[in-house]
């Protein structure tokens, strides 16, 4: 394995950050191609129209070299189409894709420094595992096929299955073979199209860790398409949340979760409580709002719209549930009545109805055995810095996104 890793890393250390290698628009392709860039991917104004519908509607993404990047979104959001355009399986209607600083417009899939792991693996059923992995090497007439294939099979600990046919392997094993069949060609970017979609939940968890390990080991860029928010959060360094052909928000998993900038992200990644509110005043970095007559404070940077009418949100696990009238000084607070309590083991999930008949979800860790009963009056409170602000109508959109996730 070390040889492969070395070779790939060698390529990585070459031309420095990928973004620096991206030529100005209009620069000739030859010139751009000259410094054989790494595995950074730059997508600018990418559009793909199928007839009247725009599957991808103008997206800009910059994937740093060597990162694990996830395109996350519900089915039909354009994530797979985007990936297929990077792979060269689909022609963009407009926009540009640069891989390693090189414009790849008009090039065939095999001319790009990418390889793809297909959705249902697309292993060749009539060939042995060895021949499947060797396929790319043989087509390129590369020497030393046997050693390279066996190294790759070692990477996923499947050397003993080299002479089997794909149908004789389990789903997880086929998945790993699909990954190394692509990796053996030493792409600068590995494209994964819902690679874990066909696996059951337990195996999916296991493969998430395995894929992450492989990515760390070979050190190349992975672009991973998925509709599973947990999968994206577990593996990716950066996630682009897509909806209706556009990128809703791009950032690290923690950033997306803690500070969603759109209703869609708030609903698609985890759960959110959202309340209609109105901006009352701004005190420097702090915005003061009024929601249902309660005074809500939040950092100005976490309010994504100017207002005055907005919706304020907070994640269920950030909310503290206390006796009526009891809350930390300086925290945002709302009174309500417990209408439902479900004990889940690690946590208890409460549904609290406010005086304005809004329902808020609260997750509490089961630190004490004291459970709130239905009908009990309580005060909900949370830190101002856990509050985020979105456009009005966010609740409906977030609920729709939650259903889609």
């Amino acid at each position, binding site marked *: 394995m070390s040889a492969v890793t070395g070779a790939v890393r060698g390529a990585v250390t070459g031309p420095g950050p990928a973004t620096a290698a991206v030529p100005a628009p209009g620069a000739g392709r030859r010139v751009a191609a000259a410094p054989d860039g790494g595995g950074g991917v730059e997508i600018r104004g990418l559009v793909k129209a199928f007839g009247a519908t725009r599957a991808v509607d103008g997206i800009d993404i910059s994937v740093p070299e060597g990162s694990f990047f996830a395109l996350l979104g519900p089915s039909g959001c354009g994530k797979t189409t985007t990936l297929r355009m990077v792979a060269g399986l689909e022609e963009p209607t407009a926009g540009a894709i640069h891989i390693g600083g090189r414009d790849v417009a008009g090039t065939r899939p095999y001319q790009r420094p990418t390889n793809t792991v*297909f959705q249902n693996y*697309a292993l060749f059923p009539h060939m042995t595992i060895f021949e499947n992995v060797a*396929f790319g090497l043989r*087509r*390129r007439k590369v020497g030393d096929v046997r050693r390279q294939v066996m190294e790759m099979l070692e990477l996923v600990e499947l050397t003993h299955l080299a002479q089997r046919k794909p149908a004789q392997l389990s789903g997880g094993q086929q998945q790993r073979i699909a990954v190394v069949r692509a990796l053996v*060609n030493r792409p600068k970017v590995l494209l994964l199209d819902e690679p874990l979609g066909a696996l059951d939940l337990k195996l999916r968890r296991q493969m998430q860790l395995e894929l992450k390990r492989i990515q760390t080991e070979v050190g190349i860029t992975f672009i991973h398409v998925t509709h599973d928010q947990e999968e994206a959060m577990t593996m990716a360094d950066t996630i682009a949340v897509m909806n209706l052909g556009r990128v809703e928000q791009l950032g690290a998993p923690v950033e997306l979760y803690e500070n969603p900038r759109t209703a869609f992200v708030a609903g698609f990644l985890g759960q959110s409580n959202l309340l209609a509110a109105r901006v009352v005043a701004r005190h420097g970095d702090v915005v003061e709002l009024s929601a249902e007559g309660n005074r809500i404070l939040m950092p100005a940077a976490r309010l994504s719209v100017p207002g005055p009418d907005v919706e304020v949100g907070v994640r269920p696990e950030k909310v503290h549930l206390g006796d009526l009238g009891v809350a930390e000084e300086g925290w945002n607070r709302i009174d309500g009545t417990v209408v439902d309590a479900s004990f889940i083991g690690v946590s208890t999930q409460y549904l609290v109805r406010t005086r304005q008949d809004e329902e808020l979800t609260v997750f509490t860790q089961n630190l004490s055995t004291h459970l709130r009963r239905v009908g009990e009056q309580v005060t909900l409170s949370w830190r101002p810095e856990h509050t985020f602000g979105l456009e009005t109508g966010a609740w409906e959109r977030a609920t729709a996104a939650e259903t889609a996730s």
Partner: protein
Amino acid sequence: MSVAAAGVGISSVERTGGPDGPVRGAGPDSAGPVGSRRLTPYFLLLPALLALVVFYVLPTLTLASTSLQTGDLQQGYSITWHWATYGDVLTQYWPQFLRSFAYAAAATLFALLIAYPLAYTIARRAGRWRNVLLALVVAPFFTSFLIRTLAWRQILADQGWVVSIMKSTGLMSVTDWLGLTSGRLLATPVAVVLGLTYNFLPFMTLPLYTSLEKIDPALLQASGDLYANAWQGFWRVTWPLSLPGVVGGTLLTFIPAAGDFVNQQFLGSVSETMTGNVIDSLALTQRDYPSAAAMSLVLMVAIVVLVTVYVRRSGTDELV
């Protein structure tokens, strides 16, 4: 045809692991209904087995016994274990056997060359026209086999447009020089092979279509992603995965074509007959039933041997 039917029966049994395959899964715990359950597959096989006995086994045995009889129509026939009939028909009619297999092989090859691109197009490129095209492939069956073959007589006739085009373009002189034609198309091997090719084309097309249609298009995309050009993608992925269809289609074409006599009778020359014509004439004109029976059995055995060698060679059981 019966040979092909028997062959298909064998391969399907092999795949499902025998008729008692599913019963094993039930395990010994379900002791009560096991007896009847174990018999269920055989009950289901019964109609097919009966048909096979009545329409295949018994006629074949009758044929075998007839081939060993001597006598004539007036005196009646009796079994005399006269094996010499086999030697006689082989020495007398070996050119007809050879011609049958050569014509059938040529027709099979041409049918494959025509049907493969056709089936590929229907399976891969036809889009919403797929069903219309499939219906067109089967459409000739709505007219009788005889009428369609007779129609070819008209098309290939000496005064027909095909011959006049061939003559005016000079193509006829080339085929004449090659010995394929003799100033005309009718009554030549070309016409017979053409008729066979035409008549059995749907039997080649449909199995090919079925196996091509089953190939996941993502496999070709994957081969493209893994540096295979269009030709390599075809040769390394599509072709091997379509082999079951190729084997099925060639068997369904070759076997009936080798035994056919209608195409030769309508389109061929009297001097270049096939096995089928000889059997036809022996049984219905000369009333030499033992020789006709011996010919039939020889043809059948020869086909079984050829098919067995072919299927073994093509190694389709290794696929999937």
